Protein backbone atom coordinates (compact mmCIF):
# COMPACT_ATOMS: atom_id res chain seq x y z
CA UNK A 1 0.00 0.00 0.00
CA UNK A 2 1.48 3.36 -0.95
CA UNK A 3 2.01 6.09 1.61
CA UNK A 4 -0.83 8.36 0.40
CA UNK A 5 -3.32 5.52 0.86
CA UNK A 6 -1.98 4.72 4.31
CA UNK A 7 -2.24 8.36 5.29
CA UNK A 8 -5.83 8.52 4.08
CA UNK A 9 -6.65 5.36 5.99
CA UNK A 10 -5.14 6.83 9.15
CA UNK A 11 -7.07 10.08 8.80
CA UNK A 12 -10.37 8.21 8.30
CA UNK A 13 -9.66 5.92 11.23
CA UNK A 14 -8.70 8.79 13.54
CA UNK A 15 -11.79 10.77 12.54
CA UNK A 16 -13.99 7.80 13.35
CA UNK A 17 -12.53 7.59 16.86
CA UNK A 18 -13.55 11.18 17.52
CA UNK A 19 -16.93 10.83 15.88
CA UNK A 20 -17.76 7.73 17.89
CA UNK A 21 -16.71 9.45 21.11
CA UNK A 22 -13.77 7.20 21.96
CA UNK A 23 -11.49 10.24 22.00
CA UNK A 24 -12.19 13.88 22.80
CA UNK A 25 -10.41 17.23 22.35
CA UNK A 26 -7.94 16.44 25.10
CA UNK A 27 -6.30 13.86 22.83
CA UNK A 28 -5.64 16.67 20.34
CA UNK A 29 -3.76 18.50 23.10
CA UNK A 30 -1.51 15.48 23.42
CA UNK A 31 -0.80 15.42 19.72
CA UNK A 32 0.05 19.10 19.80
CA UNK A 33 2.62 18.51 22.53
CA UNK A 34 4.47 16.04 20.29
CA UNK A 35 7.27 17.63 18.28
CA UNK A 36 10.93 17.13 17.30
CA UNK A 37 12.06 17.35 20.92
CA UNK A 38 9.38 14.82 22.00
CA UNK A 39 8.90 12.66 18.88
CA UNK A 40 7.37 9.67 20.70
CA UNK A 41 5.42 11.59 23.25
CA UNK A 42 1.97 10.28 22.34
CA UNK A 43 3.09 6.65 22.27
CA UNK A 44 4.84 7.06 25.62
CA UNK A 45 1.92 8.72 27.37
CA UNK A 46 -0.58 6.26 25.93
CA UNK A 47 1.62 3.35 27.13
CA UNK A 48 1.76 4.95 30.56
CA UNK A 49 -2.00 5.19 30.56
CA UNK A 50 -2.34 1.52 29.59
CA UNK A 51 0.04 0.42 32.39
CA UNK A 52 -1.65 2.59 35.01
CA UNK A 53 -5.14 1.56 33.94
CA UNK A 54 -4.47 -2.13 33.93
CA UNK A 55 -3.12 -1.92 37.44
CA UNK A 56 -6.14 0.14 38.54
CA UNK A 57 -8.59 -2.30 36.97
CA UNK A 58 -6.89 -5.19 38.79
CA UNK A 59 -7.01 -3.27 42.07
CA UNK A 60 -10.68 -2.49 41.47
CA UNK A 61 -11.53 -6.12 40.74
CA UNK A 62 -9.81 -7.20 43.97
CA UNK A 63 -11.39 -4.44 46.02
CA UNK A 64 -14.89 -5.35 44.85
CA UNK A 65 -14.22 -9.03 45.47
CA UNK A 66 -13.83 -8.57 49.22
CA UNK A 67 -16.50 -9.81 51.68
CA UNK A 68 -16.64 -6.28 53.13
CA UNK A 69 -16.11 -3.86 50.29
CA UNK A 70 -14.16 -0.74 51.21
CA UNK A 71 -15.99 1.79 49.03
CA UNK A 72 -13.60 4.56 49.91
CA UNK A 73 -10.78 2.56 48.42
CA UNK A 74 -12.87 1.66 45.37
CA UNK A 75 -13.75 5.33 44.89
CA UNK A 76 -10.11 6.38 45.15
CA UNK A 77 -9.17 3.93 42.37
CA UNK A 78 -12.04 5.07 40.13
CA UNK A 79 -11.12 8.68 40.85
CA UNK A 80 -7.62 8.00 39.62
CA UNK A 81 -8.86 6.24 36.50
CA UNK A 82 -11.23 9.09 35.77
CA UNK A 83 -8.34 11.53 36.08
CA UNK A 84 -5.97 9.72 33.78
CA UNK A 85 -8.60 8.84 31.18
CA UNK A 86 -9.79 12.45 31.04
CA UNK A 87 -6.19 13.65 30.79
CA UNK A 88 -5.50 11.62 27.66
CA UNK A 89 -8.92 12.14 26.15
CA UNK A 90 -10.36 8.64 26.55
CA UNK A 91 -13.86 10.04 26.76
CA UNK A 92 -15.94 6.88 27.07
CA UNK A 93 -13.73 5.49 29.83
CA UNK A 94 -14.04 8.81 31.67
CA UNK A 95 -17.82 8.77 31.34
CA UNK A 96 -18.02 5.20 32.60
CA UNK A 97 -16.03 6.31 35.67
CA UNK A 98 -18.49 9.12 36.39
CA UNK A 99 -21.36 6.63 36.72
CA UNK A 100 -19.13 4.31 38.73
CA UNK A 101 -18.35 7.00 41.31
CA UNK A 102 -21.99 7.83 41.91
CA UNK A 103 -22.78 4.17 42.68
CA UNK A 104 -19.76 4.02 45.00
CA UNK A 105 -21.27 6.87 46.94
CA UNK A 106 -24.46 4.83 47.33
CA UNK A 107 -22.44 1.77 48.42
CA UNK A 108 -24.33 -0.24 45.81
CA UNK A 109 -22.42 -3.51 45.26
CA UNK A 110 -24.40 -4.81 42.29
CA UNK A 111 -24.33 -1.53 40.44
CA UNK A 112 -20.61 -1.01 41.07
CA UNK A 113 -19.86 -4.51 39.79
CA UNK A 114 -21.80 -3.71 36.63
CA UNK A 115 -19.91 -0.42 36.33
CA UNK A 116 -16.62 -2.24 36.65
CA UNK A 117 -17.58 -4.44 33.69
CA UNK A 118 -18.60 -1.35 31.74
CA UNK A 119 -15.34 0.45 32.49
CA UNK A 120 -13.30 -2.62 31.56
CA UNK A 121 -15.17 -2.92 28.28
CA UNK A 122 -14.65 0.74 27.39
CA UNK A 123 -11.01 0.54 28.39
CA UNK A 124 -10.25 -2.50 26.21
CA UNK A 125 -12.11 -0.92 23.31
CA UNK A 126 -10.15 2.32 23.42
CA UNK A 127 -6.91 0.44 24.02
CA UNK A 128 -7.52 -1.58 20.89
CA UNK A 129 -8.42 1.53 18.88
CA UNK A 130 -5.39 3.50 20.05
CA UNK A 131 -3.04 0.61 19.35
CA UNK A 132 -4.45 0.29 15.83
CA UNK A 133 -4.09 4.02 15.24
CA UNK A 134 -0.53 4.13 16.54
CA UNK A 135 0.38 1.09 14.44
CA UNK A 136 -0.91 2.85 11.32
CA UNK A 137 1.23 5.87 12.21
CA UNK A 138 4.32 3.71 12.64
CA UNK A 139 3.74 2.08 9.25
CA UNK A 140 3.52 5.49 7.58
CA UNK A 141 6.70 6.76 9.25
CA UNK A 142 8.52 3.51 8.42
CA UNK A 143 7.53 3.99 4.77
CA UNK A 144 9.04 7.49 4.83
CA UNK A 145 5.76 9.40 5.08
CA UNK A 146 4.66 12.02 7.59
CA UNK A 147 1.70 11.83 9.96
CA UNK A 148 -1.16 13.80 8.43
CA UNK A 149 -3.15 16.35 10.42
CA UNK A 150 -6.90 16.37 10.20
CA UNK A 151 -8.30 19.43 8.45
CA UNK A 152 -9.58 22.11 10.83
CA UNK A 153 -13.04 22.00 9.25
CA UNK A 154 -13.63 18.50 10.60
CA UNK A 155 -13.52 19.69 14.20
CA UNK A 156 -16.18 22.26 13.51
CA UNK A 157 -18.50 19.67 11.99
CA UNK A 158 -18.32 17.54 15.13
CA UNK A 159 -18.35 20.65 17.30
CA UNK A 160 -15.03 20.28 19.08
CA UNK A 161 -12.83 23.14 20.18
CA UNK A 162 -9.56 21.23 19.73
CA UNK A 163 -9.06 22.44 16.21
CA UNK A 164 -9.68 26.14 16.68
CA UNK A 165 -7.63 28.56 14.53
Amino acid at each position, binding site marked *: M*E*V*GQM*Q*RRLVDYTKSLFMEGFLDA*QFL*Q*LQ*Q*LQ*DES*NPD*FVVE*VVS*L*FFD*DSEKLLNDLTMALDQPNVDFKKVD*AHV*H*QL*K*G*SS*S*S*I*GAQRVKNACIAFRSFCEEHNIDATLRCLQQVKQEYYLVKNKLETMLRLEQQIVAA*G*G*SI*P*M*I*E*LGFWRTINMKGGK*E
Partner: protein
Amino acid sequence: MAPTLPSNDQASDQDNWDNGRLARKRQLLTEIVLRNRLTALVVDGDTTCRVLEQLLLRSYGVQTQGVDNGRDAVAFIASGVKFDLIIIDMILPVLNGLEATRQIRDMGVHCKMLGVTVCSGESERQAFLAAGVDVFIEKPLDPEHLVPILRELDGQLFVESGPLVMYW
Protein backbone atom coordinates in the same frame (compact mmCIF):
# COMPACT_ATOMS: atom_id res chain seq x y z
CA MET B 1 10.10 11.39 1.32
CA ALA B 2 6.85 13.04 0.21
CA PRO B 3 4.01 10.81 -1.01
CA THR B 4 3.14 10.85 -4.73
CA LEU B 5 0.40 13.30 -5.74
CA PRO B 6 -1.39 12.01 -8.84
CA SER B 7 -4.47 14.25 -8.60
CA ASN B 8 -5.38 17.80 -7.62
CA ASP B 9 -7.45 16.61 -4.67
CA GLN B 10 -4.49 14.93 -3.10
CA ALA B 11 -2.30 17.98 -3.65
CA SER B 12 -4.59 20.18 -1.56
CA ASP B 13 -4.91 17.46 1.08
CA GLN B 14 -1.12 17.35 1.40
CA ASP B 15 -0.98 21.15 1.73
CA ASN B 16 -3.66 21.01 4.38
CA TRP B 17 -1.80 18.35 6.25
CA ASP B 18 1.55 20.17 6.30
CA ASN B 19 0.03 23.61 6.83
CA GLY B 20 -2.25 22.21 9.50
CA ARG B 21 0.68 20.89 11.47
CA LEU B 22 2.62 24.13 11.11
CA ALA B 23 -0.42 26.25 11.96
CA ARG B 24 -1.14 24.08 14.97
CA LYS B 25 2.45 24.50 16.23
CA ARG B 26 2.42 28.23 15.64
CA GLN B 27 -0.84 28.46 17.52
CA LEU B 28 0.65 26.66 20.49
CA LEU B 29 3.87 28.68 20.47
CA THR B 30 2.50 32.15 19.83
CA GLU B 31 -0.21 31.81 22.43
CA ILE B 32 2.32 32.92 24.97
CA VAL B 33 5.93 34.05 25.13
CA LEU B 34 7.14 34.22 28.71
CA ARG B 35 9.85 36.72 29.52
CA ASN B 36 10.69 35.13 32.85
CA ARG B 37 11.68 31.66 33.86
CA LEU B 38 8.71 30.45 35.86
CA THR B 39 8.90 27.43 38.16
CA ALA B 40 6.10 25.06 39.10
CA LEU B 41 5.51 22.12 41.41
CA VAL B 42 3.04 19.48 40.21
CA VAL B 43 1.48 17.31 42.92
CA ASP B 44 -0.50 14.37 41.53
CA GLY B 45 -0.63 10.72 42.60
CA ASP B 46 -1.45 9.53 39.09
CA THR B 47 1.61 9.14 36.86
CA THR B 48 -0.21 9.81 33.58
CA CYS B 49 -1.73 13.06 34.86
CA ARG B 50 1.46 14.24 36.52
CA VAL B 51 3.60 13.59 33.43
CA LEU B 52 1.07 15.32 31.19
CA GLU B 53 0.73 18.37 33.40
CA GLN B 54 4.51 18.72 33.68
CA LEU B 55 4.89 18.41 29.94
CA LEU B 56 2.18 20.95 29.26
CA LEU B 57 3.93 23.43 31.57
CA ARG B 58 7.31 22.68 30.01
CA SER B 59 5.93 23.34 26.54
CA TYR B 60 5.42 26.92 27.75
CA GLY B 61 8.93 27.12 29.11
CA VAL B 62 8.02 26.57 32.76
CA GLN B 63 10.57 24.65 34.80
CA THR B 64 8.73 21.91 36.71
CA GLN B 65 9.18 19.42 39.52
CA GLY B 66 6.73 16.63 40.24
CA VAL B 67 5.80 14.76 43.42
CA ASP B 68 3.25 12.00 43.75
CA ASN B 69 1.91 12.53 47.28
CA GLY B 70 0.86 15.30 49.67
CA ARG B 71 3.44 14.64 52.35
CA ASP B 72 6.37 14.97 49.92
CA ALA B 73 4.85 18.17 48.54
CA VAL B 74 4.73 19.74 52.00
CA ALA B 75 8.26 18.53 52.78
CA PHE B 76 9.57 19.97 49.52
CA ILE B 77 8.07 23.40 50.25
CA ALA B 78 9.20 23.23 53.88
CA SER B 79 12.79 22.66 52.72
CA GLY B 80 12.73 26.19 51.33
CA VAL B 81 12.38 25.57 47.60
CA LYS B 82 10.39 28.40 46.00
CA PHE B 83 7.89 27.97 43.20
CA ASP B 84 5.89 30.52 41.24
CA LEU B 85 3.07 28.02 40.82
CA ILE B 86 1.83 24.89 42.58
CA ILE B 87 -0.57 22.54 40.85
CA ILE B 88 -2.17 20.14 43.28
CA ASP B 89 -4.79 17.39 43.06
CA MET B 90 -7.40 16.98 45.77
CA ILE B 91 -7.12 13.23 46.34
CA LEU B 92 -3.50 12.29 47.05
CA PRO B 93 -1.74 9.37 48.73
CA VAL B 94 -0.34 9.70 52.26
CA LEU B 95 -1.58 13.27 52.84
CA ASN B 96 -4.61 14.51 50.92
CA GLY B 97 -4.61 17.65 48.78
CA LEU B 98 -6.83 19.71 51.11
CA GLU B 99 -4.59 19.13 54.12
CA ALA B 100 -1.39 19.56 52.10
CA THR B 101 -2.70 22.90 50.77
CA ARG B 102 -3.57 24.08 54.28
CA GLN B 103 -0.13 23.15 55.58
CA ILE B 104 1.61 24.90 52.68
CA ARG B 105 -0.42 28.07 53.28
CA ASP B 106 0.24 27.84 57.02
CA MET B 107 3.95 28.02 56.26
CA GLY B 108 3.33 31.49 54.87
CA VAL B 109 3.69 30.46 51.24
CA HIS B 110 1.72 32.88 49.04
CA CYS B 111 2.45 31.60 45.55
CA LYS B 112 -0.35 30.83 43.08
CA MET B 113 -1.94 27.45 43.80
CA LEU B 114 -4.17 25.69 41.31
CA GLY B 115 -6.38 22.88 42.53
CA VAL B 116 -6.61 20.58 39.50
CA THR B 117 -8.87 17.67 40.24
CA VAL B 118 -11.36 15.18 38.93
CA CYS B 119 -13.94 16.18 41.55
CA SER B 120 -16.35 18.65 40.04
CA GLY B 121 -18.98 19.26 42.72
CA GLU B 122 -19.63 22.67 44.21
CA SER B 123 -18.88 21.43 47.74
CA GLU B 124 -15.50 20.12 46.60
CA ARG B 125 -14.78 23.41 44.89
CA GLN B 126 -15.63 25.38 48.02
CA ALA B 127 -13.59 23.04 50.21
CA PHE B 128 -10.50 23.31 48.02
CA LEU B 129 -10.78 27.10 47.79
CA ALA B 130 -11.27 27.29 51.56
CA ALA B 131 -8.14 25.16 52.07
CA GLY B 132 -6.18 27.79 50.18
CA VAL B 133 -6.03 27.17 46.42
CA ASP B 134 -6.53 30.29 44.30
CA VAL B 135 -8.19 28.58 41.36
CA PHE B 136 -10.19 25.36 41.08
CA ILE B 137 -9.87 23.56 37.75
CA GLU B 138 -11.56 20.35 36.75
CA LYS B 139 -9.21 17.89 35.06
CA PRO B 140 -7.79 17.84 32.50
CA LEU B 141 -5.60 20.92 32.83
CA ASP B 142 -5.76 22.72 29.48
CA PRO B 143 -4.12 25.79 27.89
CA GLU B 144 -7.36 27.80 28.07
CA HIS B 145 -7.14 27.83 31.85
CA LEU B 146 -3.38 27.74 32.16
CA VAL B 147 -2.24 30.42 29.70
CA PRO B 148 -3.94 33.43 31.36
CA ILE B 149 -2.49 32.35 34.69
CA LEU B 150 1.02 32.02 33.26
CA ARG B 151 0.68 35.45 31.58
CA GLU B 152 -0.42 36.96 34.89
CA LEU B 153 2.49 35.42 36.80
CA ASP B 154 4.93 36.47 34.09
CA GLY B 155 3.52 40.00 34.15
CA GLN B 156 3.92 40.26 37.91
CA LEU B 157 7.58 39.28 37.66
CA PHE B 158 8.03 41.80 34.83
CA VAL B 159 6.71 44.59 37.02
CA GLU B 160 9.03 43.59 39.86
CA SER B 161 12.14 43.39 37.69
CA GLY B 162 11.59 46.72 35.90
CA PRO B 163 10.70 47.91 32.38
CA LEU B 164 13.90 46.93 30.57
CA VAL B 165 12.43 43.96 28.70
CA MET B 166 10.22 44.60 25.67
CA TYR B 167 6.93 42.72 25.69
CA TRP B 168 5.91 41.24 22.35
